[in-house]
């Protein structure tokens, strides 16, 4: 039963056009199933428990058209600036979700476009693609999958260590009218492999567009991935993202998710610890000002015994900004000896900023260690006094402590150019001088 509503008219129109194109059988099949599911689910409303603090009305009322690969207009000139910080190592650039060969630097073997992998190794892709980020329940995954065409693909072979970080840069360039892109990434780390992946989302400031992105990461036995996501969309943009992680025995995964841009942002970071001995770290920082809304949802499924997870999410909210944090930890009946720790800290810098924070622990095993804590507050007066007693003025002391609160996450980033760049952004956001010839925190 297909319920056609006005708010997805443009999506249906664009889908119909996409259906006319030649495509690999796998994609055609996935798209069809996903589009059917999306039209059944529809956009979530506030009545949906998972969306009760985040109204999608600003998003659903905009008639977004599917963005093409074209790079036209004055915005093209900002490309270099948008790609800053990703000059070294392998890089995949997706413009409006389309692989941009001229901007990407890949070895074509382990790192490349999803379309190429689909052409050359369709069976391998089929084993993984859309197997983890299900579209059955989550409408935005369904919508992304319905428009699957290309994306980024990383396959790290067994035992291989890739020393240099791999950059995935998602650029949105609109041609004037509001457009939507559905970027997709599939990252598979075979047993014993190691890699660092940095995902950056960028777009020219002031542009109105919608990024609906899905990244699936699979870690084989004893594999390790350090993942970073830097979301610096236009402050007029909509950003809805799913990061779906699946971990095998003794795998180690860490993610740092830094959310700076966007007018309405929803991040889902979900991890399934599906075998014994896994270690998963999900950290995040959201900075929001004016009328920005940032909603972070995390979910960690401890499916098997002897796994640990650590989670630290921080929000800095100013102006009329709104923040949401929902952290779910499910400890399944088999997951004895689970060690899970979740912390959520919010700094409210104005009287009009609002945070809704909700830890959600569901524990079905009896021999586990699970802790969670949420704090919401203003800057610590004792720390302010400490800085002032060293000659630092009251306003600067507040700025410095706000920077410090946020930088606590950024300084954990091991990729130096990304860390330095974000520190500069944080310092500038607080009106503080940058550290010449080095980083604020070495």
């Amino acid at each position, binding site marked *: 039963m297909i319920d056609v509503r006005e708010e997805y008219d443009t999506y249906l129109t664009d889908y119909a056009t996409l259906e006319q194109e030649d495509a690999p059988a796998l994609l055609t099949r996935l798209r069809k199933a996903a589009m059917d599911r999306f039209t059944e689910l529809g956009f979530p409303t506030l009545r949906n428990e998972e969306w009760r603090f985040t109204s999608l009305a600003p998003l659903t009322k905009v008639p977004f058209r599917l963005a093409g690969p074209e790079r036209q207009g004055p915005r093209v000139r900002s490309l270099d600036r948008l790609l800053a910080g990703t000059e070294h190592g392998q890089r995949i650039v997706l413009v409006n979700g389309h692989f941009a060969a001229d901007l990407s630097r890949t070895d074509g073997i382990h790192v490349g476009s999803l379309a190429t992998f689909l052409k050359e190794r369709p069976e391998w892709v089929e084993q993984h693609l859309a197997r983890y980020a299900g579209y059955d329940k989550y409408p935005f995954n369904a919508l992304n999958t319905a428009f699957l065409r290309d994306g980024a693909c990383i396959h790290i072979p067994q035992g291989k260590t890739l020393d240099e970080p791999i950059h995935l840069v998602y650029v949105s360039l609109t041609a004037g009218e509001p457009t939507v892109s559905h970027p997709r990434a599939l990252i598979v780390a075979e047993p014993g492999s190691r890699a660092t992946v940095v995902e950056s989302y960028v777009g020219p400031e002031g542009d109105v567009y919608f990024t609906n992105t899905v990244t699936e990461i699979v870690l084989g036995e004893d594999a390790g991935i350090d993942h970073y996501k830097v979301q610096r969309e236009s402050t007029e943009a909509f950003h809805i993202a799913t990061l779906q992680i699946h971990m095998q025995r003794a795998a180690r995964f860490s993610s740092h998710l830094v959310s700076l841009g966007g007018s309405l942002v929803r991040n889902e970071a979900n991890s399934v610890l599906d075998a014994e001995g896994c270690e998963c770290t999900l950290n995040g920082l959201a900075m929001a000002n004016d009328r920005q809304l940032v909603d972070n949802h995390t979910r960690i499924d401890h499916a098997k015994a002897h796994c640990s997870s650590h989670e630290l999410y921080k929000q800095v909210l100013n102006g009329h900004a709104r923040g949401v944090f929902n952290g779910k930890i499910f400890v399944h009946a088999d997951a004895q000896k689970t060690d899970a720790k979740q912390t959520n800290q919010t700094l409210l810098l104005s009287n009009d900023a609002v945070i809704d924070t909700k830890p959600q622990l569901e524990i079905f095993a009896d021999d586990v260690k699970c802790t969670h804590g949420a704090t919401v507050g203003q800057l610590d007066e*004792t720390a302010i006094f400490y800085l002032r007693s*060293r000659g630092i003025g009251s306003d*600067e002391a507040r700025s*410095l402590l706000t920077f410090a609160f946020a930088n606590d996450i950024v300084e954990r980033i091991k990729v130096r150019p990304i860390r330095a760049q974000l520190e500069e952004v944080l310092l500038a956001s607080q009106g503080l001088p940058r550290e010449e010839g080095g980083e604020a925190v070495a």
Partner: protein
Amino acid sequence: MLTIFNLHAKVDGKDILKGINLKVNPGEVHAIMGPNGSGKSTLAGVLAGRELYEVTEGDILFEGKDLLDMDPEKRAREGIFLAFQHPVEIPGVSNKYFLRASLNAIRKHRGQPELDAMEFLKLLKEKAKVIHIDPTLLDRPVNAGFSGGEKKRNEIFQMAMLEPKLAVLDETDSGLDIDALRIVSDGVNALRSKERSVVVITHHQRILNYLVPDKVHVLVNGRFVKSGGKELALELEEKGYKEFGYVEPKGKVTQPVLS
């Protein structure tokens, strides 16, 4: 340098200081000793400008200027430095960045040019040698994850960098083992000069073996009950505070929180 007249102060509506008089000349080291709850940390906090403490009577002159009229940053810029009993941890800001912001704020106030990154690093290395502080600590976030001894040494290092005219050491010796105590005292001694004065606030006589005072004041129940030379500290160690009118309170003494 520093003159305190008849200082009375309250914390949470409770009278803590009940008429303190003190004169510290340039180059002098004064020790203020007293039992728990006598008002030692309150005096330190009042000097540094902590808002927690309400001055109800009296005056403080610092180089002839009205100290109570200045906010904490102004006092620091004028040359007062408080080494905290419990230095604050600030994860997310490196010692280097913090110190440069601090030093440049003070230099600006004094009409000196701000130091650029190179000049600052040079000074940092010089002072690190004087205080024998591990330079890698300076790249780390302010006091975060430091041991008790490292925190105290970092306070003295900040003092060396900021070159105050008057340093107030609030129980800098508490929680230090004998080696750490010697290192911290050596650091302070290295900074002693004819122009720089030091007020050492302490519970124990121990630190005064290394940091020899010109004058010793015994603070009991918010008043100086006796003042004298360095030998007074030894007398105090021998006889205890009871000889000086201190009555041990029944139950637990609650300390005002001065981090």
